């Protein structure tokens, strides 16, 4: 009886030594993702992947700015439900996708948050239309106006913020610098972009497409 017990203990020990240690998997630092499926977040990579669809998304939903401003009649919030996208579903700040044609009246690159002032062709309203030209971009209207991504797709607000920042990097390189804003004064441009409503006097548009005529 005793011998039998010893034997079973011995068998158990052998089993533990072979099978249990067999379960231990050594994961090298930096390779955790292979096991957990959670890959380290790279905002630059994410934005590179979604860039073209982001441009298409904004282009598709962009409202003609002339008719938009006429319809708003001095109250930019009034068109929220019709054309805008709220930051918090049904409340919060409102971002709009817009497009238009204008003449560049001023190019300000003294500030790092640079901009150009554009006179919309065929519009005589009092609103000041500015297009951001960086290198620093204010707000996050490009990200916020998109329908193809949601906050819920990302782990936390830091990743969400990084997406906006990388979109701006992409815009600066591909949309702004590529069109040499310093030479645009007096030129007519077609633009597609987005802005977040902030009062009725000024629109600060972040372009996602620019065409110099």
């Amino acid at each position: 009886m005793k011998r039998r017990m010893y034997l079973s203990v011995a068998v158990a020990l052998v089993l533990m030594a072979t099978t249990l240690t067999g379960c231990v998997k050594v994961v090298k630092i930096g390779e955790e993702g292979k096991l957990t499926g959670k890959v380290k977040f790279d905002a630059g990579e994410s934005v590179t992947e979604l860039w073209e669809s982001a441009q298409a998304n904004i282009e598709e939903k962009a409202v003609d700015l002339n008719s938009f401003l006429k319809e708003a009649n001095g109250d930019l919030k009034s068109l929220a439900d019709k054309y805008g996208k709220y930051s918090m579903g049904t409340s919060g700040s409102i971002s709009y996708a817009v497009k238009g044609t204008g003449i560049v009246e001023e190019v300000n690159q003294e500030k790092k948050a640079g901009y150009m002032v554009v006179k919309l062709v065929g519009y005589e309203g009092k609103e000041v239309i500015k297009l951001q030209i960086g290198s620093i971009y204010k707000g996050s209207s490009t990200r916020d106006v998109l329908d193809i991504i949601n906050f819920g797709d990302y782990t936390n607000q830091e990743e969400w913020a990084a997406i906006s920042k990388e979109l701006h990097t992409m815009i600066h390189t591909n949309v702004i610098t590529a069109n040499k804003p310093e030479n645009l004064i007096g030129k007519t441009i077609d633009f597609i972009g987005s802005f977040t409503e902030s009062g009725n006097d000024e629109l600060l548009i972040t372009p996602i497409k620019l065409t110099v005529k």
Partner: protein
Amino acid sequence: MGEKGKYAELLGKETDTNAGVRSAAFHEVIDQYDTFEMVAVQTANWEQTQGYEKTETILQSNPDITGIICGNDTMAVGAAEACAAAGRSDIKIIGVDGSDEAAALIKEGKMTGTALQQCALIAEMAVEQADKYLKEGSTGLPEKQLVDCLAITADNVDNLKAFVYKE
């Protein structure tokens, strides 16, 4: 400060994730400017008294700063008092939270701004969604929801009271 100058940072309790998150968010914007230079960073553990004392010390060793960023309003209030005591009305002080104390200092011009965490709204949303969940079995809303922070400055501070912003 315009787009340039030296500044200091008061961090929250460093073992608290929020201290890091808020600091990272500040720097995500500020660090895009190579014209801003952070000359001092100290933790004041979210506290007003420490905010005051750390600011006093920072002002002695770095009298040329023109801005202080703070991880919460409590530390910002301490910083604002220290700056006022030193006769430094030129220093721009920014906090986070949107407390009534900060709002009062913004009105007086002793603080430049804060970021309102809409905690009253968050509480309201939580109760409404819990109620809906219990009654209907679903909130009908995504699990993760973003609630905007609002930038509070002298221009809109009058709309803020007890963490509630009403236009």
